[in-house]
């Protein structure tokens, strides 16, 4: 298991290769990379606040659950905080399992939980001002398929 909460940029491809090379018995490796999107146009920066201490604990608990529930050979979570620009990678998840179904499900599980249960908050800065990104009902609802909480 590897969890990193860090303001520094990361190289998704290099992380994926390093992660995959460390797996034993995995036939399937899935990665997800989240990128800052300029949805409305005019995004200058994305500020990501987090709750040091709780963030790492919350993510480690999710990863432990995923390792066990999906029989993973390994999992990786990287999440940045601080000031990011449009098209910057925000975070990545990688999962590995003997079979593809489990690797995919675990990556989606981790993403759904990270979105709604890891203490990060996004603030958008545009030429017109700043605003906190609102949580989406669909993100909360996405947790239902995993049996809630």
């Amino acid at each position, binding site marked *: 298991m590897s969890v990193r909460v860090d303001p520094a940029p990361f190289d998704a491809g290099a992380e994926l290769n390093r992660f995959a090379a460390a797996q034993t018995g995995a036939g399937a490796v899935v990665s997800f990379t989240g990128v800052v999107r300029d949805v409305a146009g005019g995004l200058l920066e994305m500020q990501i606040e987090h*709750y040091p201490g*709780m963030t790492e604990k919350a993510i480690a608990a999710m990863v432990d659950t995923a390792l066990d529930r999906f029989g993973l050979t390994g999992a990786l979570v990287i999440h940045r905080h601080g000031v990011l620009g449009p098209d910057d990678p925000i*975070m990545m998840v990688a999962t590995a399992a003997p079979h593809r179904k489990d690797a995919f499900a675990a990556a989606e599980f981790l993403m759904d939980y990270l979105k709604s*249960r890891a*203490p990060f*908050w996004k603030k958008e800065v545009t030429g017109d001002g700043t605003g906190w990104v609102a949580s989406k009902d669909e993100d909360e609802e996405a947790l239902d398929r995993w049996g809630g909480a």
Partner: protein
Amino acid sequence: MIDVLYFAWVRERIGLPKERVETAAATVADLVAELSAREERYAAAFADLSALKVALDQELSDFDAPLAGVREVAFFPPMTGG
């Protein structure tokens, strides 16, 4: 004494990220009532509890949870990471 932390717009509305609070509040809701009675900026931040979450000692919890033995309370809006 309890550490109270605020994040995102809760932090901005209250105007500080963290404070030590002397309280005998039995539950989170009691603490919220105490803080809201202090000053308008607290009352504004806590006006709609359905828009807020609370963590006790870095674990998500509820507003009716007891505070006995808790050292750190954090208030924040729903998370928007990922």
